[in-house]
């Protein structure tokens, strides 16, 4: 239990998938203009990352048992795309309110490399099922945290006219991300127990 909690904290903070592994940057930069959208995208990513992690795990075991690991990347991508498609239809039908707030972002997630990376990471790290689920969920939360942080800062900055015109828009995001990832390096070595 302690291990699982530790793994969760690690995947959210110490090894934040956005700020220390630098993954999922394109959507993070594109959709962090305001906090509302950032939250929508973040929640969608948490959902999809956790679900695909859990689904891809038994599929990988099956592939490994049949000796066709060469295909695992291809199969992971297909699973992700199918999950996203399914989730979109499901939410649209049963939770229309939720769909209005973040359904828009679902198709974009297929191309978010965080999702694929999480599936490749659990293979590489030999996680068991519980660890995979925890790690997937933690990675999703970590990415959510990063995009909402960036969006919050961007919203505040937008009221400030002092930004040089060459840095306005997406340029300044790099500086924000640089400072944030410096801060997250500070978590290195953090252990709770």
């Amino acid at each position, binding site marked *: 239990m302690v291990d699982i909690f530790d793994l969760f904290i690690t995947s959210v903070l110490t090894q934040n998938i956005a700020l220390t592994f630098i993954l999922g940057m394109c959507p993070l930069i594109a959709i962090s203009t305001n906090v509302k959208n950032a939250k929508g995208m973040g929640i969608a990513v948490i959902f999809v990352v956790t679900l695909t992690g859990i689904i891809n795990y038994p599929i990988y075991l099956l592939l490994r048992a049949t000796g066709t690991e060469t295909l695992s990347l291809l199969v992971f991508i297909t699973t992700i795309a199918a999950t996203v498609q399914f989730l979109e239809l499901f939410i649209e039908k049963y939770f229309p309110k939720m769909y209005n707030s973040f359904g828009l972002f679902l198709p974009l997630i297929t191309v978010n490399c965080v999702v694929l990376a999480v599936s490749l990471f659990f293979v590489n790290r030999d996680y068991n099922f519980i660890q995979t689920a925890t790690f997937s969920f933690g990675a999703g939360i970590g990415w959510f945290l990063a995009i909402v942080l960036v969006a919050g800062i961007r919203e505040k900055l937008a009221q400030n006219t002092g930004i040089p015109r060459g840095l306005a*828009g997406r340029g300044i995001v790099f500086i924000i991300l640089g400072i944030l990832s*410096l801060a997250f390096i500070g978590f290195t070595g953090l252990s709770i127990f």
Partner: protein
Amino acid sequence: MKLIRLRYKKWYNISRDGLTTNNPIAIAVLGICSALAVTNRVDNAIAMGLAVVFVVTMSSLTVSLIRNFIPSRVRMVTYMVIISSFVIMVQLFLEAFFPLIAAALGAFLGLIITNCIVMGRAEAFAVKNPLRYTFFDGIANGLGYTYVLVIVAVVRELLAFGTILDVRIMPDTWTNWVAMALAPGGFFVLGLLIWALRELTNNFETVSE
């Protein structure tokens, strides 16, 4: 006289677009993950850049070739499948026949699959254009990506290790900036470079709020 006529050719415009006016990294801000991951050494940046030129061109050509058959709902997945099977096949061939190159490029292959430039070009260009233009578009975008990578890498390697292409440039008293080799250094250098490029090309983003 010939040069002036060239200006009007479509492929010239396409190439210029990828290299400067619509540079994938500096202007469109795509492919950032890999751009940050490999730019702490110049040799890595060059290797990654060339690999991307190759993969972008080839996968765009494939997409362009079958563009009339791809149903629009599943096109994203189609791109990803094409790109990843392409990369895996290249990797297997290299491992079988050129193991040394494969070992050197091994770490980059995963990064290429998730590189959104490849995806971006497939979606924005290849799926709507015939083969010959797609070819120029792929090469131009790949090279546009490569040179930005190399500039960032020169700055980072110089500050982080005091060398360029492993040749010592800085005096021995130079203190290495380790932060430059890590993620934050990449963010700062790339951010500043985008600033410089936008000032130079007079291409600004208007913030719509």
